[in-house]
């Protein structure tokens, strides 16, 4: 098991390095001369050259790549923003907690509420409660989350005046962003939860538990739920990554100065250090989330654990 974890962590590092390399190359290929874009149209040839030298753009692709890889992954330094001149890492660290807070809270809501709804629907299978839950889930899967966010702003902020529409003044500002980020995931988990519950309900070991004379409520809690939760837990890592990856759009709707909004700033200004830093953050976050959930899954399911323990490193 320990060996397996180490192997997975090493694998993750390699994946992140390669992802960094690919993203750098993509950004390098971006059309237009960054120096020209930064200085505007009336810049002279010599100032542009000077700017290129200052940003290190006169070096070859390989040199630039090597420098980026070294600074980013060895010294955790993404350099200075081309447009603002401030260290990117510093800005990122300020913005990080906001994005993470929204993402993790939304995911907790996803799992708890989604699973509960799924179990609710499955235990009322075929009745109106089931149909209603599934219809609502279908609607929320199909509605674009950023539009839902806009409608929430319209309703709760503008019409009712209950919650702030944008910014990060106090904890109430986070309510709408978290809710809007969570809704699609709740709907997905409710559907997933329902179908895995239905699978478990007909499992033989449930008959066994009934034959023992166990109460139905205890059977649901002790036998059905843990088994039905497994597919949901598998999806938590990916879901968390998805919520955080949706942050550029969500943060732009609610004007929250998080990592996603920072990425959009970088893209609009063609500011390569900002974009690279944000994308590397997203890649690291995704990989870590998925890795953690895989390990968690292995810890919870003795069958998977045994598989991993049996695997040889190599």
């Amino acid at each position: 098991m320990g060996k397996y974890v180490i192997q997975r962590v090493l694998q993750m590092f390699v994946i992140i390095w390669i992802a960094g390399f690919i993203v750098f190359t993509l950004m390098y290929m971006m059309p237009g001369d960054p120096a020209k874009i930064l200085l505007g149209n009336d810049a002279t040839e010599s100032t542009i050259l000077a700017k290129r030298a200052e940003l290190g753009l006169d070096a070859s692709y390989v040199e630039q790549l090597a420098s980026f890889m070294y600074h980013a992954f060895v010294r955790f330094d993404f350099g200075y923003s081309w447009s603002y001149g401030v260290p990117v890492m510093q800005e990122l660290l300020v913005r990080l907690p906001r994005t993470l807070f929204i993402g993790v809270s939304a995911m907790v809501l996803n799992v708890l509420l989604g699973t509960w709804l799924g179990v609710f629907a499955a235990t009322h299978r075929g009745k109106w409660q089931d149909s209603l839950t599934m219809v609502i889930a279908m609607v929320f899967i199909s509605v674009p989350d950023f539009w839902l966010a806009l409608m929430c702003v319209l309703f709760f902020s503008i019409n009712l005046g209950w919650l702030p529409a944008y910014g990060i003044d106090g904890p109430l500002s986070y309510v709408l962003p978290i809710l809007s980020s969570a809704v699609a995931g709740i709907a997905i988990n409710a559907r997933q939860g329902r179908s895995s519950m239905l699978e478990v309900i007909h499992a033989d070991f449930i008959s066994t538990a009934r034959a023992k004379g166990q109460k139905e409520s205890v059977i649901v809690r002790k036998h059905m739920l843990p088994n039905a939760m497994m597919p949901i837990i598998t999806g938590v890592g990916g879901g968390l990554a998805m919520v955080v990856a949706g942050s550029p759009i969500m943060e732009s709707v609610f004007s929250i100065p998080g990592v996603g909004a920072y990425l959009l700033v970088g893209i609009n200004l063609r500011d390569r250090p900002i974009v690279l830093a944000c994308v590397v953050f997203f890649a690291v976050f995704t990989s870590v989330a998925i890795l953690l959930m895989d390990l968690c899954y292995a810890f919870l399911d003795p069958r998977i654990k045994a598989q991993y323990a049996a695997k040889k490193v190599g």
Partner: protein
Amino acid sequence: MKMKQVKRNLNPPPTSLQAEFFARILAAWSARLGVAILLFVLVAIVLGPVISPYGVNQMDLTQILGKPSASHPFGCDSMGRDLLTRLLHGGRYSLLLGFAASMFGALIGTFIGCIAGYFGGITESLLMRLMDVWSAIPGMLLCILVSIVMGAGFFPTVLALSIGSVPGGVRMVRGQILVERKKEYIEAAESINCSKMSIMFHHLLPNVIQPMIIITTMGIGSTIIMASALSYIGLGIQPPTPEWGAMLADGRNYIREFPHLITFPGISIALTVISLNLLGDGLRDALDPKMRN
């Protein structure tokens, strides 16, 4: 007499395969509803712009930010253009983008997955590790990155939208091929000297196509949402093309006074995506009862 009994137990043969197939898709009321909405949307976006008395980019300066009225049922946008006309026109782009990007992603996924599953060995491990890297960057981000590198336009946007769905497709196809390859009928085919290509195309690929169709159909809806999100943040298809997401971005500035500018485009997206998702569910239930609950 005995034969009669045996025959009676068999299901009556289907009248035609297609008819049977469509009957199965439409078995659930939800799938019927999906098809009905989709047909409605399709008819509207095909006929709408033709019937509408207004041009897509025809501005009426007296109607800037006009609220819904008899002559402009959905109102007008910040440049005095008829919202309904633009919505109907924009639907063409959204649907086309959704379909094209899902198909394209599925094609690339199937292609790479087949290569990985077919050749095995180093090719396979290299490709699969590449997919690990590929999926380490979330789909929406890849989409944004590719979009800024490739620039605006229809095909770059299709590419950007499809790229996130590739790793999932590759894993599915390869997994399916690995499962099928172990089965004995493949061994049987090999034993009668079927060529590798023939095994690939006649035996392995058909097993992949069905789940791929399901996944692709179910993905069209989310691709349309992604396309609108992309144009909402100002990438992908550019104004004045009336893409639904771009219209939302435009309406966002007037949300306080003129909420109709964000309500109607959003409802259009939601309605289209719901119909596609319902159809996708129906298709899944019809093609693969195992995947159903």
